[in-house]
C-alpha cells in the first residue's frame, strides 16, 4: 500500500485497495500540481525520490498512525518524474470503522509526509527551473 511510481496515480484504485467490509469511512487526500506556485507560472514539475528511504519513512508514518488511531488500512502513493498541471503527485487513502480516525489520520499522513519523506520537486516555469525547498 506504500508506493513510489512513475505512473499516473488513481484515487479510485487507492480507495478500493483500503476498503474492507469492516470499514465505514475512507478519507483521502490528493495533492495536485497547481498552475501557479509562489507567484510563478508552472509549466510542469519534476519529482525525484530517494525511493528506498521514502518507502521506509512512509512505513514509519503508517506505524505512527496505527499507534495513534484505530484505522483499518492506509495507502500512500507518490508519483515521481514529470507531472503536468492538475496531475496528482500524491494520493493518501485511509480507511477505518469510524470517520474521525480516518479523517485525522489522513491529515496527519500528509503533514508527516511533507516533513520526513525524502522526495523533492523541481518547478519548471517559462523563465527557468527551481528546486523547491532550498530556502526559496
Amino acid at each position, binding site marked *: 500500500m506504500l508506493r513510489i511510481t512513475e505512473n499516473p496515480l488513481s484515487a479510485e484504485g487507492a480507495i478500493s485497495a483500503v476498503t474492507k467490509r469492516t470499514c465505514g469511512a475512507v478519507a483521502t487526500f490528493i495533492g495536485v500540481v497547481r498552475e501557479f506556485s509562489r507567484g510563478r507560472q508552472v509549466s510542469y514539475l519534476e519529482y525525484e525520490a530517494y525511493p528506498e*528511504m521514502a518507502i521506509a519513512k512512509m512505513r514509519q508514518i503508517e506505524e505512527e498512525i496505527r499507534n495513534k488511531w484505530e484505522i483499518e488500512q492506509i495507502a500512500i502513493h507518490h508519483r515521481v518524474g514529470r507531472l503536468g498541471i492538475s496531475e496528482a*503527485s500524491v494520493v493518501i487513502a485511509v480507511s477505518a470503522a469510524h470517520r474521525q480516525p480516518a479523517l485525522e489520520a489522513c491529515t496527519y499522513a500528509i503533514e508527516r*509526509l*511533507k516533513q520526513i519523506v525524502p522526495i*523533492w*520537486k523541481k518547478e519548471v516555469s517559462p523563465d527557468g527551473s527551481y*528546486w523547491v525547498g532550498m530556502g526559496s
Partner: protein
Amino acid sequence: MRVTVKLFAAARAIVGQGEVSIELKEGSTVGDLMEHFFTRHPELKGIAGSLLLAVNREFAERSVNLQEGDEVGVMPPVSGGTDA
C-alpha cells in the same frame, strides 16, 4: 573503509553525480565525509546549513561514525507531497 554516497535534487545537481563511492579513513564521521564534498564542490557548502543527511536510510547527525559499506544520503529539505 568505503561508503556509498547518494545525492539528491539540488545536491545531486551541484555534485553532478547521483551516486559516488568514497574511501575514508577508519573512524570518519558523516561530518568528515561532508568536508570531502565541500572541498571539491564549494557551492554545496553554500547550502550546507539546510542539507539533510542520512545513514542507511535513517536521518543522521554529522557526528555519527561511519562503517564500511554504509549508504549515506545527502539531500535538501524534502518537498514532496504537494505544494499546497
